[in-house]
């Protein structure tokens, strides 16, 4: 199946359509995005350049098959995602105002990087089930705060 994102005037994804791969074959019988775009323009009254192919199996620039050469445009587009033509990536909604784009992983990163790892003691308490430690982003303090869901 071929998946195409419908891009609105403000660059947001306003819909995702699926159709048979046979409808995007060129004269040589090879799948061609521009053929799919023309097909969608004809049947959906929306201009061909505003249909962008997206991969159902791509998340965070990795492909579910393990072969990341097949990854397409960072993420599978969803309604409300932003189409970034410059980086050729579909971005999900920005989780916090201070987070920045990581074009390598096609994901949003905090300004101070990933959450730190839990300590060995916290991990063992999680394993034992006495606590449930996890990190949550504190936008006001610009820090990762550790919390215990069982506290």
């Amino acid at each position, binding site marked *: 199946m071929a998946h195409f994102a419908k891009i*609105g*005037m403000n660059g947001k*994804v*306003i819909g995702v359509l699926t159709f048979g791969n046979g409808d995007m074959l060129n004269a040589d019988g090879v799948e061609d995005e521009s053929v799919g775009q023309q097909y969608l323009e004809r049947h959906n*009254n*929306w*201009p061909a350049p505003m249909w962008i192919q997206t991969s159902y199996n791509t998340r965070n620039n990795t492909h579910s098959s393990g072969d990341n050469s097949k990854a397409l445009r960072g993420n599978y587009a969803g*309604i*409300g995602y932003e189409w970034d033509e410059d980086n050729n990536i579909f971005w999900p909604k920005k989780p916090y105002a201070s987070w920045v784009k990581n074009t390598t992983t096609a994901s949003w990163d905090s300004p101070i990087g990933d959450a730190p790892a839990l300590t060995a003691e916290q991990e063992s308490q999680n394993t034992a089930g006495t606590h449930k430690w996890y990190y949550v982003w504190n936008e006001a303090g610009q820090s990762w705060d550790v919390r215990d869901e069982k506290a």
Partner: protein
Amino acid sequence: MHKKVLSEIDLHYGTIDMPKGFEIDRDKLKSDILSSQIKNSKFPYSRNWDMLNTYMREHINVEHGFTLINKETWGNVYKPKEVSIPLLNIDPVDLRNSPDYTFLYGVNVKDCSVRIHYDQNRRAGRSWDIPLENNGFIMFPSTQMYYITNNQTDSLNFILTTTYEFI
């Protein structure tokens, strides 16, 4: 101190911003309104109506996160200086089958305004006036009564109405 909004009267308005070359052909919608009025028939399905309807449903979903389902569509023609009767698109004794939202689209309008009536707690009987322009839309809860006014003296106003349920 916390606040929770239990109910709201949401008014959506703006213009239908279609890509270049894919604009709504309002002349076609105008002739469809005329023909359905003359023949006293249902407003016909057309490519242009579908483009308009799809635009609204998709953009409401993206911007506000709810899905609209079509109920009915019809067109009206208002004479110069005409003020409509009070309009209400729900049936108060059949709310189950009544629509949630009323969508008005300015097909061919000049100096047209819509007055929407609403209550604000004990302050009942308030109204809000909003102009309706060519290629412009207004959408509000179908529980609100409204009037449409053609304020000028020299041309007809063509307005398309669609009602929606939401999920």
